[in-house]
C-alpha cells in the first residue's frame, strides 16, 4: 500500500468519524486547538484575534505555535510534521503558493463538505485571486487569511526634497535613486538606492517574475507549460544587472532576505524598496522607526509602455488532514477568514484585506491611506505557477537568481540554468 492511499483512506475514515461526532459536539469537554503561524505574519495580532474568538466561543481554547520567519523555513518544519502525519496541529497558516502542493500531498482537509450549500456563496465574497488560489481541482483546500502583493515603497521626504516624482518605469527608478544618492550619500554613507529580495528564498522568485511580467512576459502558458521567452528573460535580468552597475542596489543584494529590506528602510537607509504590505505598519508604528510618516507606497515600476506587475502573495488558513478536531477547526477557520478579522488585521498590521469592501472601510483607510489604491494592485497581481511541484519551480528560480545577483553567473547562464531545471517540472 502506498503512503498516498493510506492517507486517503485515513482521510475518508476521519471524515466519516467527524460527521458522526459533530452531532454530539456540543456536549463534549472543552476543546484545545493548535494553530501554526509564521514569526513574520504578526502572531501578536493573531493572538488578539484568537482572544476575541475564545471570548465568543466558550469551551474552545486556541494555542499558537510560531514558526520561522520565511515561508521556506515554515514549510520545512511543516513538511516534517505533516509527512509524519502528526496530529499536533489543527489549523495551519500557509503561503498562497502552497495549496496545490498540499492538495497533492493530501495534507489539508478539503472544506467543501463542511461549507455545504454555502460553499459558492462563501467563496464568491473573496477577491478573485484568492478564490482561485484556494480551490484546487474543484475542491476548497483553505480559506484566505490576508492578501498581499509587492509594492514600491519610497521615501516621500527624500523624493520631495529632490523634486522627484515616484517612478513608473525601472529606468526612472534607477535615475531617481542615482540622483538622490549623489546628493545624500555624504550625509548618510549607509544610504542605498533600491533593495529587493536576492537571498536564496521564496521572495527572490518574484524578483525575477516582476520585471518579466512588467514587460508583458510570462513564465508559463495557459496549460502551465514552461513558456519563457529568452529575449524577455534576458531583458528582465539585464534590468537587475543595470541596477548593480549603477550602484543602485546594495552590493550584497544576494544576501538580502525579505525582512532585511524592512529593517534597512526602517533605519532610514533605503530610498526605494520592493516590499510586501506588512512593512507599512512597522514603519508607522515601531518604536525604532526612523521613517514614520516619511514613506509612500505606489505600484511597482514596469518597462515603458507596459502595465505594472506584482506577485500575488498572502496567507491562507487550512485545516490539517491529521487534526483530531476538524469540526472545531473549520469553525475557527470561518472566523479567521471573515470580514471582521480582515479589518482587524488591516488596522493592526497593515495586512491587505481579502474582501473587496474592507478596502473602503473608513477606519482601515485612516490607518493605511494607501489602501485606497492597493485594491487595484492586488486585483491585478499575478500568481506564481500553480503546480504541486512548486517547491522545485521555486528552488530552480531562486537559486539561479541568487547566483546571478551575486554576479557569479551571466544572464545567459542564468536563463540556461533555469530552463534546464524548469523544463522537466513545468510540462
Amino acid at each position: 500500500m502506498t503512503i498516498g492511499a493510506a492517507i486517503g483512506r485515513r482521510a475518508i475514515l476521519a471524515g466519516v468519524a467527524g460527521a458522526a461526532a459533530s452531532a454530539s459536539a456540543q456536549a463534549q469537554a472543552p476543546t484545545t486547538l493548535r494553530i501554526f503561524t509564521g514569526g513574520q505574519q504578526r502572531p501578536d495580532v493573531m493572538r488578539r484575534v484568537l482572544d476575541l474568538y475564545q471570548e465568543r466561543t466558550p469551551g474552545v481554547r486556541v494555542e499558537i505555535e510560531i514558526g520561522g520567519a520565511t515561508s521556506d523555513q515554515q514549510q520545512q518544519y511543516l513538511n516534517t510534521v505533516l509527512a509524519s502525519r502528526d496530529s499536533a496541529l489543527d489549523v495551519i497558516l500557509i503561503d498562497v503558493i502552497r495549496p496545490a502542493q498540499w492538495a497533492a500531498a493530501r495534507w489539508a482537509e478539503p472544506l467543501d463538505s463542511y461549507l455545504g450549500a454555502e460553499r459558492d456563496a462563501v467563496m464568491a465574497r473573496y477577491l478573485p485571486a484568492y478564490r482561485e488560489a484556494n480551490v484546487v481541482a474543484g475542491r476548497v483546500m483553505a480559506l484566505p487569511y490576508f492578501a498581499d502583493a509587492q509594492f514600491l515603497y519610497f521615501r516621500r521626504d527624500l523624493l520631495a526634497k529632490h523634486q522627484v516624482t515616484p517612478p513608473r518605469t525601472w529606468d526612472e527608478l534607477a535615475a531617481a535613486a542615482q540622483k538622490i544618492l549623489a546628493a545624500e550619500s555624504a550625509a548618510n554613507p549607509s544610504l542605498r538606492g533600491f533593495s529587493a529580495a536576492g537571498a536564496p528564498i521564496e521572495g527572490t522568485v518574484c524578483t525575477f517574475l516582476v520585471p518579466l511580467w512588467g514587460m508583458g512576459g510570462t513564465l508559463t502558458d495557459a496549460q502551465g507549460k514552461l513558456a519563457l521567452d529568452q529575449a524577455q528573460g534576458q531583458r528582465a535580468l539585464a534590468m537587475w544587472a543595470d541596477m548593480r552597475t549603477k550602484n543602485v542596489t546594495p552590493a550584497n543584494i544576494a544576501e538580502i532576505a525579505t525582512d532585511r529590506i524592512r529593517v534597512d528602510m526602517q533605519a532610514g537607509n533605503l530610498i526605494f524598496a520592493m516590499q510586501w504590505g506588512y512593512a507599512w505598519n512597522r514603519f508607522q508604528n515601531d518604536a525604532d522607526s526612523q521613517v514614520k510618516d516619511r514613506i509612500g507606497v505606489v505600484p511597482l515600476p514596469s518597462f515603458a509602455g507596459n502595465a505594472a506587475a506584482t506577485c500575488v502573495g498572502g496567507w491562507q488558513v487550512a485545516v490539517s488532514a491529521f487534526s483530531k478536531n476538524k469540526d472545531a477547526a473549520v469553525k475557527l477557520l470561518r472566523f479567521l477568514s471573515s470580514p471582521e478579522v480582515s479589518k482587524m488585521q488591516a488596522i493592526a498590521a497593515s495586512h491587505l484585506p481579502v474582501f473587496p469592501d474592507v478596502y473602503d472601510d473608513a477606519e482601515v483607510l485612516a490607518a493605511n491611506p494607501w489602501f485606497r489604491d492597493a485594491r487595484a494592485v492586488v486585483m491585478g497581481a499575478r500568481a506564481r505557477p500553480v503546480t504541486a511541484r512548486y517547491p522545485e519551480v521555486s528552488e530552480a528560480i531562486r537559486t539561479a537568481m541568487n547566483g546571478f545577483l551575486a554576479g557569479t553567473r551571466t544572464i545567459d547562464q542564468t536563463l540556461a540554468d533555469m530552463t534546464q531545471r524548469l523544463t522537466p517540472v513545468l510540462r
Partner: protein
Amino acid sequence: MAQLRIGPLERAERRLGLLLLTPALLLLSSVVLYPIGTLLWTSTQQMHLAQPWLEGFVGLTNYARALDDPRFWSSLGTTLIYVAITVPGAILAGLGLALLANLPFRVKWPVRLGLLLPWALPLVFAGLIFRWFFEYEQGVVNGLLRGLGFAPLRWLSTPELAMLATCLAIVWKSSSFVALVLLAGLQAIPASLYEAAAVDGASPWQRFRHVTLPMLRPAIVVALIFRTITAIQTFDIPYAMTGGGPGHSTETLAMYVHRTTIDVLDFGYGSALAALMFLISLAMTSVYIRQTRRDEGS
C-alpha cells in the same frame, strides 16, 4: 572438535552474556539497522509527495538519476573541498590547542572551558554567529577591514569568500573536539620518555617530532576518522551561513539531500542520494581503518 567442547557452566555463562547483550542489540537494530534498511528500501521507490500517483518500485532508477545529475556531482565536489580543507585545518588547529592546554598552567579550568565551549555550541548557532561576523554592512570582519582602510568584502555572496568563511567557521567549531581527543592522547604519553630524550640532548622540536607525534599517532587517527565522517556530512554551518549560495557554490551533498527530501518532498531520490553519501563515508572510513590495522600489525 575436542577443544571446542565446553562445560555446562561455561555454556550458562555464554547464554547469560548473550541475554545481557540483547537489549543493546535490540536498541542498535531499531535505531541504526531499521532506519538504514528503510532508507535503502525507499531509495528503490518512486516516492514524491507532490506526485503520489506515480509511486512504486523503480529499482535502481534513482541511483542512475544521481549519476546523471550535475548537481549531485557539484555538491559532492563541494563536500570534498570541505573535507580537504576542514579536516587538516581542524587537526592542525586542534593539535595547537591541545599542546597549549597541555602546558602546566596553574589554573587549568579557563583553558579547558575554552576548549569545551565551541564543542558544546550547537552547529547552527555557530553558523549564525559566524554569519553575523561576515555580514556585509554590520559584520565585525568588514568593520575591521573598513577600519584598516580597505574596501568591505562580500564574504557571503562571493563563491570563494563564502567557501573560506564557512571553512573558518567549521574549523573553529570542530577543532575543539579534535583538541579534546588529542589532549587525552598527550596526557597518556609517559613523562619518562621526554626525560630520556632531554638527557640524550634532544631539542624541543626533536622531542615533539620524535616523541610526541609518534606517541600521538593513534589519537590523531581517531580524530581524523571522526572529523572526516562529520566533514562528509557537512550541513549546518553552510546552511545557516549561506543557504548553499551564492547559487549552488557552497551546497554540500548533505544539503542537497535535505533540499530534495524536506523541501521538494522527493523521498525516493533523496534516499538514493543519502545512500550514496553513506557509501562515500564508508569508503573513506575503511581507508583509515585499514591504515590503523596495518599500524597495529607492524
